[in-house]
């Protein structure tokens, strides 16, 4: 048993329990392909942290007898469903739990195979850290790039690049150094990511829990030591106060409160707040909980707030700090990950759920699709399952939100198909676009025969067209021009905004 997993020295069991209860929680996701040894790594983390019971170990040893008699097959500890066990691959997100004396962990274990982008996105959505597994023999593969990209897309600040199977390359420093250099070059474009590179062998246990004596050239902490020490949770604590209202609590005439969770920031009794979307301002009268009234509350706490003024607040409203209020718009720019077999349809009404609010929204256009292997932008008229696109949506009524980069809770949404009730897409808001239906035109009359019209695209590009000026009705001419533009660019790369 290593220093990392040994129980700390303690005075009494009660004291030990107090330490236990004070532990924080790191949620991380693991990505890797079928052959990267991901299941083996997770199995080893569970096993070495004593999170596997004897009877579970017996049951996977039994099950291994047919496939690979003899040694414990760690990967079987994490393969959940029968169908998967028969196929020998994991095909969905599975959650695992383990703890060390320093910290509790929740693993969202996701498959790395190409068609399962949606599972990786799902697993990463609740995680603060991603482990990307790389096979030391193969180096940086397209899928490793994909995993790193998804980690960055989902706003994970920490990415561990675990170069696995070091035992099969003779524990060579040069191999590890080459992969690290390759990966660092690739990661340079993702400013938000802090990578940590660690050479491991999940099978042999090198640098997983214990630092390995077989790689004396490596001086960093083992994988588990890093997971135990990486700082977490600071961002939501330091962000602006946001409180999406889940329910109005009205047990009697005297009490009217708003139940919800502080998704970011902190709040104290007396603090001024603004309600979105109404824009009304008031202040916090009380913070009520089952365990008594609080003076302050912090991100992560589920409480009930009462307000100093009688204001109409309903489920779906957001209570925020007036110093830094959320954006409010019915035009939303977002990165969309399509999750469903039925492809995205332009101008179709979807149910959009953002925090506690549901609203009708239409997908107005797809700016581009992202090629997840080359990271190139591609022209697209729809998004198929597992495809990622930059899109523009219009909601029936204005929504209050933040960009995903600023706030994961208020900047994320799902789209639901009204006919099937399936969750068809996951969205990360990139910005608000006001009055996106109009066009910014700059008509210049060149002569009595020709008018030159410029308009500006969403991406800042400008286009110039000419049209006859002898039309009596300029508005009609513009409409015809628009039709021509639409015909030429069926997937518009422009915003109709402004007016003549």
């Amino acid at each position, binding site marked *: 048993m290593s220093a990392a997993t040994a129980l700390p020295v303690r005075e009494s069991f009660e004291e030990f*329990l107090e330490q*236990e*209860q*004070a*532990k*924080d*929680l790191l949620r991380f996701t693991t990505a890797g392909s079928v052959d990267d040894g991901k299941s083996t790594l997770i199995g080893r983390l569970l096993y070495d942290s004593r999170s596997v*019971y004897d009877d*579970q170990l017996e*049951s996977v040893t039994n*099950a291994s007898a047919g496939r690979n008699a003899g040694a414990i097959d760690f990967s079987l500890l*994490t393969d*959940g*469903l*029968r*169908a998967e*066990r028969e196929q020998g691959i994991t095909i*969905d*997100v*599975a*959650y*695992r*739990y383990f*703890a060390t004396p320093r910290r*509790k962990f929740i693993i969202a274990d996701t498959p790395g195979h190409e068609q399962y982008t*949606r599972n990786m*996105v*799902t697993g990463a*959505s609740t995680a603060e850290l991603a482990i990307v597994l790389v096979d030391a023999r193969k180096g940086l593969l397209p899928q490793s790039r994909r995993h790193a990209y998804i980690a960055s897309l989902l706003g994970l600040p920490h990415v561990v690049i675990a170069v696995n199977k070091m035992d099969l390359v003779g524990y060579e420093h040069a191999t590890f150094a080459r992969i690290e250099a390759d990966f660092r070059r690739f990661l340079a474009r993702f400013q938000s990511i802090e990578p940590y590179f660690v050479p491991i062998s999940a099978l042999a246990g090198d640098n997983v829990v214990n630092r390995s004596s077989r790689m004396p050239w490596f001086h960093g902490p083992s994988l588990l030591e890093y997971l135990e020490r990486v700082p*977490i*949770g*600071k961002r939501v*604590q330091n962000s602006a106060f946001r409180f999406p209202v*889940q*329910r109005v*609590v009205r*047990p009697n005439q005297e*009490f009217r*409160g708003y*139940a*919800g969770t502080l998704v970011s920031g*902190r709040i104290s009794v007396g603090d001024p707040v603004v309600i979105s979307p109404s824009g009304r301002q008031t202040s916090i009268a009380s913070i*009520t*909980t*089952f365990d008594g009234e609080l003076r302050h509350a*912090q991100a*992560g706490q*589920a409480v*009930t707030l009462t307000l100093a003024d009688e204001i109409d607040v309903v489920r779906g409203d957001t209570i925020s700090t007036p110093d830094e209020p959320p954006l409010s718009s019915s035009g939303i720019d977002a990165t969309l990950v399509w*999750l469903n077999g039925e492809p995205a349809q332009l101008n179709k009404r979807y*149910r959009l759920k953002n925090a506690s609010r549901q609203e009708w929204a239409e997908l107005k256009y797809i700016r581009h699709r992202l090629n997840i292997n080359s990271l190139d932008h591609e022209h697209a008229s729809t998004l198929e399952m597992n495809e990622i696109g930059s899109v523009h949506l219009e909601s029936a009524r204005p929504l209050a939100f933040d960009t995903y980069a600023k706030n*994961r*809770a208020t900047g*994320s949404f*799902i789209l*639901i198909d009204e006919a099937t*009730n*399936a*969750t068809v897409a*996951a969205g990360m808001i990139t910005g608000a676009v006001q009055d996106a239906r109009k066009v910014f035109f700059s008509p210049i009359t060149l002569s009595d025969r020709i008018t030159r019209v410029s308009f500006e695209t969403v991406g800042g590009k400008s286009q110039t067209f000419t049209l006859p000026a002898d039309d009596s009705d300029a508005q009609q001419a513009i409409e015809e021009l628009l039709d021509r533009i639409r015909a030429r660019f069926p997937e518009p790369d422009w915003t109709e905004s402004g007016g003549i």
Partner: protein
Amino acid sequence: MSPLSHLRQLEAESIHILREVAAECQRPVLLYSIGKDSSVLLRLAQKAFHPGQMPFPLLHIDTGYKFREMIEFRDRYTAQLGLKLIVHTNRAALESGATPFAWGTQRCCGALKTTALLDGLRNGGFDAAIGGARRDEERSRAKERVFSFRDSRGQWDPRNQRPELWNVFNTRIQPGESLRVFPLSNWTELDVWQYIHAEDIPIVPLYFAKPRPMLVRGDSLLPIEQSFVPRLPGEQPQLVMCRMRSLGCSPCTGAIRSEADTVLRIIEELITVRRSERQNRVIDHDQDGSMEIKKQEGYF
């Protein structure tokens, strides 16, 4: 301010889930199984809706073979909290002689648990059933969603579950379909006990060790509350210091030898014990992957 402890994070996450159910589902119900997880669930529901009342009733699927102490605890505790309790039992199956010995474990569970649950939900017109299941309990549960979708026959299709991102839950269903909601999804057995300790939550006394009459068969301790539990020739119950690690029907729940007679001692035992929680339940050992089959048929 430092981030919340793991226990307070789990608590807040569960409260968020319970509030989403109450806000978005038409007729939710809390499936109350009387066990420690149900006790935790009740406390979380009290917290979620304070200072208001819990906006849904409790439903207990009583197989007829639950431990007597469980039923006593159920009636006392729910009355004390002033909660509305519905009890549903598959009387027809009991009258036809359903026991795990006469019918076999799988058929008996199918009638007294699965069928009874589906009937109980249908009788009440419930569209969302909140349960205390945890992902760490069993391998097939590791992939269960927090909001788990069931078709109009109450069945679970592991290949047709909705992706669940962030904590934005899709609660929409068609008439006849239903949701199972698991607010304790991310809790482990140890978390549950730590929370019971931290919050001083009442639990059924069967969890605490004391001398109880048991049939001793090898490593197994078999309770004898039901007279139909068959005895081997000359077999007599022995008084054994033991406790229940999980609660179910008395004929199918094995006890474990234990001296742990307080919550603290249970936690201490848990940290050193090397057997998983459900291992003492007979029902999971019918065949490899049996829980997954039960779930597909509609079992909780």
